């Protein structure tokens, strides 16, 4: 009688613990994943403000078309984008804050004239309302947090880029510790005004520099593997993603942050810069819109980390 080895060509292994490839894969990079296509924005644009929790919940507001600044707002539900109420003031290059598509802040941005602004609008899920202004003008910077605990930092092109950081406590803005490396067009992420990351940007000169905010000061940590500007980010200060941007050529690169260093993971399908992005961790994120060599993008991509499963086999 033929045994199983004859049929299958190899013997079944009898293991008493997880096979190494599974365990090692998780240790090597628990956030490894891939981008899949999502529903397209109704209006292709770049320099778009963003908020949300990831691939099933995001908000894009303002931005730029060939015709100039926009006040359009679109909300994503995991399948499609829906146009909702406009911003009160047209702007692009907004520093967006918010962990959900029902609560967000649109901080600063460019709308000419007067150019860069100190204006702040708050989204409550149905409309935008002007609230307390920042102490300085903002735009092209980094941002993190929620509508009750937010942070904006860097940005605002001028003679020299800004290192300025302002913290929001739900009712007012306070200037806090500056970035070590002043810059514009940086990527960023973070879920509160006490923990954030800023990475990449233009100082001037494209940088890979990464800084971590602990609630009182910025500390330089390990750099991105690929220097770039006009990129997007998702996550928090201990697990994050950096994606897209300009190297200066359009980038598809995605890097994951494990709390101490960046690792290259699977690429976006389409190179783009000045894109929107959102997500609260390194395993679930969204990338949308942006500029590309062929013009403004409406494409959305959804990041989900690989799902590792153990399928136990009982033998006797």
């Amino acid at each position, binding site marked *: 009688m033929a045994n199983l080895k004859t049929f299958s060509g190899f013997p079944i292994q009898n293991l008493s613990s997880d096979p190494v490839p599974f365990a090692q894969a998780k240790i090597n990079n628990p956030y490894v994943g891939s*981008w899949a296509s999502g529903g397209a924005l109704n209006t292709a644009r770049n320099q778009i403000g963003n908020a949300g929790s990831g691939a099933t919940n995001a908000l894009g507001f303002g931005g730029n078309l060939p015709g100039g600044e926009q006040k359009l707002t679109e909300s994503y539900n995991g399948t499609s984008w829906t146009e909702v109420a406009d911003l009160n003031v047209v702007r692009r*290059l907004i520093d967006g804050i918010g962990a959900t598509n029902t609560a967000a802040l649109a901080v600063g941005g460019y709308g000419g004239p007067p150019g860069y602004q100190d204006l702040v609008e708050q989204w409550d899920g149905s409309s935008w309302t002007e609230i307390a202004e920042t102490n300085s003008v903002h735009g092209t910077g980094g941002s993190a947090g929620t509508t009750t605990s937010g942070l904006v930092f860097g940005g605002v092109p001028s003679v020299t880029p800004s290192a300025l950081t302002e913290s929001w406590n739900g009712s007012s803005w306070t200037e806090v510790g500056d970035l070590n490396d002043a810059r514009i067009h940086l990527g960023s992420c973070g879920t509160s005004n006490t923990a954030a990351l800023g990475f990449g940007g233009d100082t001037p000169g494209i940088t890979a520099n990464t800084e971590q905010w602990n609630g009182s000061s910025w500390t330089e940590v390990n750099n991105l593997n690929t220097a770039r500007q006009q990129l997007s980010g998702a996550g928090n200060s201990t697990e994050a993603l950096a994606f897209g941007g300009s190297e200066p050529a359009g980038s598809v690169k995605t890097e994951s942050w494990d709390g101490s260093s960046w690792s290259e993971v699977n690429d976006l399908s389409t190179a783009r810069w000045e894109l929107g992005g959102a997500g609260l961790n390194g395993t679930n994120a969204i990338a949308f819109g942006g500029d590309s060599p*062929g013009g403004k993008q409406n494409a959305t991509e959804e990041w989900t980390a690989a799902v590792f499963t153990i399928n136990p086999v009982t033998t006797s």
Partner: protein
Amino acid sequence: MAYKYCTATNWGKNFFTHEERKQFHLSGHPGDVWVVGDNLYGDQWIGKVSGAIKTQAEAQAIVTGEIEAAQAAYDALSADEQALQTRPAIYNLP
């Protein structure tokens, strides 16, 4: 790595899936041009999206034409507007 080239319009959700991104190379370019890893899974995806097969030269011509149009649009902007944006650059497909 060997590639195939096609044009296909991205319809959004499930145009490409997480699983497909792990099975073959896929990159999107101007003019709805897609560069697809030349393997069984890549062929299946081209069929799924009803991709129109192109030679590399044909695909490059589409991409270059789209970028040249985007460059012309950029060049027509005011100096102030150009300062806020990036001029697209022509590149070669893999």
